[in-house]
């Protein structure tokens, strides 16, 4: 099914909401830039941070003053006087500068909100599942046609860059589960045919499989878009890279352990060990240098991510990074832009 078929489904699913587009007067108010920006940016953060989202309340703004909304004042007001007033009242009438014009406590119902919004006041209702706007007696429940507050809240719960270590812990649990774990390893019947076969025998092209699996997990579980295989000026390729809050990150993926030969005829003679990872450090630093020095781009951090797929696991021996003593030109990049992430342990569970 093509993406456009999915789009048609979405249009069908939101059929009633799109009626708003035909309702010019309401549409102009609901889609007015200041209101949309308020509802898109300032209010979700406020609503998302509420401890008790089961407590309902509403703000009211005058329709004819929307153009005067001082959006920069919104966040401060929400954090101070408005929050304070919500302790005693659930209906707050706001001036365009977000000062409180009046506040009261009412038994908020759908009908009451519809009725209150008929006298030139837009009602912004905060319910359990998100924020609704009521304009001229009508709820515009899915003002953002394709997403809702739950999607937004879920996105917010995804890992931030500061939480990358926790994210990788979660990932470690994920890849050691049945149904996922098998994707990495040769099956038991094949292993039986091989001599000196380790328990953890990865499939051919292990690095690619591990990297692509990690990429998919990061894209689903962090707040960022990770991409792969960016070519540097020297023709070498970054494994993974992303931009988080304006900062650039690269992520080099390495692994320790054994894999099978390309024709499945035996265990590959290459044993990826601590030395491989130390080379991985140098490789990452060379990439960092290439990006910063040769390509003249910004880079916040180059991360090294190691899968430990050895049968017998021990801490990675970086030899106190003494090997960098011979790589003086890389040292500044190590000091300022490099981080080795905690290794990800992976074992065949079959």
């Amino acid at each position, binding site marked *: 099914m093509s993406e456009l078929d999915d789009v048609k489904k979405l249009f069908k699913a939101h*059929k009633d909401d799109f009626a708003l587009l035909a309702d010019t007067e309401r549409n102009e108010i609901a889609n007015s830039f200041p209101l949309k920006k308020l509802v898109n940016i300032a209010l979700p953060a406020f609503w998302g941070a509420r401890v008790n989202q089961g407590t309902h309340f509403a703000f009211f703004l005058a329709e004819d003053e929307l153009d005067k909304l001082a959006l920069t004042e919104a966040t401060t007001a929400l954090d101070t006087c408005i929050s304070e007033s919500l302790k005693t009242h659930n209906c707050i009438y706001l001036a365009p500068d977000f000062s409180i014009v009046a506040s009261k406590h009412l038994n908020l119902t759908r009908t009451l909100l519809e009725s209150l919004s008929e006298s030139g006041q837009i009602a912004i209702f905060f319910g359990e599942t998100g924020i609704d706007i009521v304009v001229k007696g009508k709820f515009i429940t899915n003002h953002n046609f394709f*997403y809702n507050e739950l*999607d937004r809240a879920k*996105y917010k719960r995804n890992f931030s860059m500061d939480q990358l270590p926790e994210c990788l812990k979660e990932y470690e649990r994920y890849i050691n589960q049945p149904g996922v774990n098998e994707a990495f390893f040769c099956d038991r019947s094949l292993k039986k045919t091989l001599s000196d076969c380790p328990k953890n025998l990865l499939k051919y092209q292990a690095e690619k499989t591990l990297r692509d699996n990690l990429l998919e997990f990061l894209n689903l579980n962090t707040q960022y*878009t990770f991409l792969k295989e960016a070519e540097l000026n020297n023709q070498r390729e*970054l494994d993974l890279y992303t931009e988080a809050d304006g900062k*650039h990150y690269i992520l080099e993926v390495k692994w320790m352990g054994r894999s099978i030969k390309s024709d499945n005829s035996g265990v590959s003679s290459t044993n990826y060990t601590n030395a491989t990872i130390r080379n991985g450090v140098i490789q990452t630093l060379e990439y960092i240098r290439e990006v910063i020095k040769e390509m003249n*781009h910004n880079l916040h951090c180059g991360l090294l991510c190691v899968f430990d797929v050895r049968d017998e696991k021990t801490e990675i021996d970086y030899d106190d990074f003494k090997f960098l003593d011979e790589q003086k030109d890389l040292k500044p990049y190590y000091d300022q832009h490099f981080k080795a992430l905690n290794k990800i342990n992976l074992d065949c569970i079959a």
Partner: protein
Amino acid sequence: MNDTNKYVVYADILSIFRSADALDWKSLRKSSVHRVMYLASVLFGFKFPEKDNIFSKYNFSIEKYVGPFSSDIEKGVNFLSKDEYLIPSGEEEPLYSLGTNAADQIFKEALVQARDEWLKLIVSILSLYGENKIYDFIFRDKEYQDAIKSNKTTGFDIGPENRTIQFLKGFQAAFEETLPQHSENVDATQYLELYFEYVFSKILKREN
């Protein structure tokens, strides 16, 4: 780049900053300027199919690491910062804001109304989602994705049949087919807004 073109670039850049400033978006990263201009270029033919693309002078190169990149914009931002039309702050990825020299009259002769209005529209749509999301919009842009996947060396197609516009036309056709009773009230600008909301929903759902 000749002098006339140079001034058009400066005017475009300042137009982006002025539009953003008017929306309380007081500062932008240099990478965002490249990206806003790329989106303005690649989407232009959807709203104005009969016109030549007035942003065709920006030869965006395909830089996977940073997204679309135009050396004219890079030089333009540097020039404008040097002469304090823009003020950078911060070190790693500086944020630029309008400087004291950037009065409305600056480079006015190079500023064509159509360019200014189109940039204003793109900036106003993007401002609804915040600067950090521009990266996510770029990497979900069809023309960008296509160029990356096919390892294009010729740069991006910003003509009226580029991949982004093809998708937008399909998006519009899907709307017209599914909701014919509403489609006559929806113009190209609203389709663009809907398209950005649709892509934003994919960002929130972590889909590509």
